[in-house]
């Protein structure tokens, strides 16, 4: 029995990172990147991007607007590993260094058409009390060297309390990020 050749399909994603609400922080910029399975590859457009730095509006909304374009096309032979967009938001700490203010991830929508998604943002929190105090004092938190871990399902359970290196848990911020997509 001849095996059918795997058929290739394309997923075109147009959209933008619209805005965010972060009550505690200002002067933020965001980075996006995509996490996808082995059967997926980007064929056109930018897979990663860094936005401009924006400040809160002075009106009652207190929104941080980026209006940052996302334009990428993927090709694949298998829906498993459907791309997720991972967003990381950064801002200055009290010393002026850029530190992470939140991470979030969501699957690119599976149906064509316009979609608007508002996603909660998470920060890694150390389980060590000393590191929690240090991070409160310095205004900076533990950061992931690779933000793509936020898109993975495995390994999210709380760390082993006997570990020598403090393991980070996730806490959810009262912060939101809004994206709109038009996948085709």
């Amino acid at each position, binding site marked *: 029995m001849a095996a*059918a050749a795997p058929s290739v399909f394309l997923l075109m994603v147009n959209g933008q990172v619209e805005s965010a609400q972060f009550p505690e922080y200002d002067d933020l910029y965001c980075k996006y990147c995509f996490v996808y*399975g082995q059967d997926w590859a980007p064929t056109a457009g930018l897979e990663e991007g860094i936005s401009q730095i924006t400040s809160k509006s002075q009106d009652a909304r207190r929104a941080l607007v980026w209006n940052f374009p996302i334009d990428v096309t993927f090709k694949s032979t*298998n*829906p*498993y*590993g*459907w791309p*997720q967009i991972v967003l990381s938001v950064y801002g200055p700490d009290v010393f002026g260094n850029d530190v992470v203010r939140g991470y*979030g*991830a*969501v*699957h690119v*929508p*599976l*149906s064509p058409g316009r979609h608007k998604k508002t*996603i*909660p943002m*998470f920060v890694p929190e150390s389980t060590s009390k000393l590191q929690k105090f240090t991070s409160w004092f310095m205004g900076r938190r533990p950061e992931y060297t690779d933000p793509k871990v936020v*898109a*993975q*399902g*495995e390994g*999210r*359970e*709380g760390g082993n*309390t006997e570990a020598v290196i403090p393991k980070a*848990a*996730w*806490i*959810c*911020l*009262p912060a939101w990020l809004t994206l709109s997509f038009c996948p085709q």
Partner: protein
Amino acid sequence: MAMAEVHVIGQIMGATGFSESSLLCKWGVHTGAAWKLLSGVREGQTQVDTPQIGDMAYWSHPIDLHFATKGLQGWPRLHLQVWSQDSFGRCQLAGYGFCHVPSSPGTHQLDCPTWRPLGSWREQLARAFVGGGPQLLHGDAIYSGADRYRLHTTSGGTVHLELSLLLRHFDRYGVEC
């Protein structure tokens, strides 16, 4: 003949309506004998989250499953266990729930109600003061209807999921989606 395939892609978004805070969710997918999991993990556990605004705990836990099947019987069911964790790291059951994976293609918002076993008045008192409380010995009662009449339960909160379905080759088996 190629087997029919089902892709379940989405997130366990979070939960509302639980009186406990610091919640985590253990999830698993149960299918019938004709189903085979081609890619993805069949079960997992979210991180612990405490509601900051309002009463929704957010997990945003991704789910990506690829099944192949020869029959409709045993359509996948997602079973959930919501636990709350205190500052000492002890876990207490907050609710059990299950929902069928939707059978029509597209994106679906699912709200899964949960329940937990009540126990005797002594166990209820102990749970209020010390914690703990009765749990099911076997997880099958979460998604199976048999032998449920023996249980006396109380309600927990609701787990919110967003799942998208992609179906393939079902028309070859004469199934309309």
